């Protein structure tokens, strides 16, 4: 079904449903593409689970006899680790170089000729990929965490839909950041160094290695307001473990929405500049 709809509607088409259908078709193709990488998915889930065990034991040792660290109880910290390990594959911190590879090989020209903005089409594909990851890579670590450590069960029902929204926003924010990093290839061609910097910074500052609230209060606030990183991982997890009161919980998701939208706009802007650049190069 993918190739029929992807070519039909033009950019000037007023038909919103046609646009929606295109977006959906691309998302489905993203889902199906990742559904074929079966062995890699299994291997990744095993690795994520291994690190889930390691981090759980270390963080639970931090709570010590008191059973509380930086406002998290033991069950909340266990959830923190295992939800984080499950979400790694969903938000996909590492290993996305599709755009940069296509810039280097020149294939990106095809993307630019499509009747849909490249940021939009890549976003659709990425949401499809994330959908597959929710089904495959999120479930295994979370189930293992529940069996071996016991996870925190939310006490307020609105937490569940809020978590779902937060995960979608996290994927969008992560995608937009990755897009900007990849788009640097229009200028640099080889972005390995930048990619390395991204994977490091995003891991540490998003709360993958330790909850950001372990940091001094001012640093946590500065990171949350001033960088998109906490919106990629820390926010959905904090929402799920009900670290804050409902008002603050909603506030964090609203902040996440701002970052997701802001980074998408930045991605579009960078893409616009990049196209000019590409024309000047005569590519």
């Amino acid at each position: 079904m993918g190739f029929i709809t992807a070519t039909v509607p033009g950019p000037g088409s007023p038909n919103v449903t046609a646009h929606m259908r295109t977006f959906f078709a691309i998302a489905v193709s993203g889902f199906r593409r990742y559904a074929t990488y079966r062995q890699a998915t299994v291997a990744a889930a095993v690795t994520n689970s291994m690190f889930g065990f390691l981090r759980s034991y270390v963080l639970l040792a931090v709570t010590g006899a008191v059973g509380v660290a930086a406002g998290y109880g033991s069950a909340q910290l266990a959830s923190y680790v295992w939800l984080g390990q499950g979400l790694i594959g969903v938000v996909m911190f590492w290993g996305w170089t599709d755009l940069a590879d296509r810039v280097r090989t020149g294939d990106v020209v095809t993307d630019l000729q499509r009747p849909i903005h490249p940021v939009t089409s890549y976003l659709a594909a990425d949401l499809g990929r994330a959908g597959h990851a929710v089904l495959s890579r999120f479930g295994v670590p979370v189930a293992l965490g529940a069996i071996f450590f016991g996870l925190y069960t939310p006490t307020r029902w609105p937490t569940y839909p809020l978590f779902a929204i937060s995960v979608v926003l996290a994927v969008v924010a992560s995608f937009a950041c990755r897009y900007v990093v990849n788009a640097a290839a229009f200028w640099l061609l080889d972005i390995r160094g930048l990619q390395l910097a991204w994977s490091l910074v995003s891991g540490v500052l998003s709360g993958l290695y330790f909850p950001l609230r372990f940091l001094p209060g001012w640093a946590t606030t500065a990171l949350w307001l001033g960088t998109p990183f906490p919106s990629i991982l820390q926010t959905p997890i904090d929402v799920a473990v009900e670290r804050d009161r409902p008002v603050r919980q909603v506030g964090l998701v609203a902040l996440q929405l701002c970052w997701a939208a802001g980074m998408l706009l930045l991605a579009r802007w960078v893409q616009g500049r990049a196209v000019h650049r590409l024309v000047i190069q005569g590519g």
Partner: protein
Amino acid sequence: MASPYLHLLAAQARSQLSYRASFALDLFGNVVTLGADLLAVLILFRVTPLLGGFTIAEELLIFALAATAFALADLAVGNIERIRLYVRIGLLDALLVRPLGVLPQLLVVDFGLRRAGRVVYAAVLLAGALVYAQVDWTPGRVALAIVAPISGAVLFSAIFVAGATVAFWWIESGELANALTYGGRDFTAYPVNVYSGWFRRVFAFGAGFAFVAYYPALVLLGRPDPLGLPTGLGWASPAVAGVAAAVAAFVWRTGVRQYRSTGS
């Protein structure tokens, strides 16, 4: 006999050093990676004064011993990970027909000189941690401070080789081996008594990870083992590493013997 390997090694070093900016960037990136791990440890101690009963100075010694052992192993055999690629594209066949050992060839052909930065960094960290932990030096402890990281490196190397061998059976093994190698690095960086149950039994004693940093650190610090085992176990590190190396060699030979080309 070693000279063809030396020639290959020198050629690799020359070729990697010729891309100066790229080499410097890789070197820098490798050092920063270690900095992030260290940062995580320091942050944990912001929240708690003791981790599994160990102070920050004692934990840093464990962390530094593990980091040095892993960095040495990664420099020596870390590029074995690329065997997946070699098996898939059939390049391994070319190595098999040459009159040289397959394993040494693999290691030399892709020798990652940029990983040397990590070794230097980890060694400096270890020296600092030894001073900070105020080790009460005896000739035995001096010897152990040198022998332990090397034994740990041999153990990690054995894990790297055994893990990479999976590619002979399961070509798209992906990052499966990482769970043991990088997972092992993280496991050894913390006191073994923070883990529990089957997880501790399997990885601390089954895979031998407790002998990389934890038991040697106990000997250096003169602390009894919270798990109740004799502290002298720190001296068993070379023996454990030797057994691991023998097992890895056996697994490797079995893998090479039953290797069938992908035929592509």
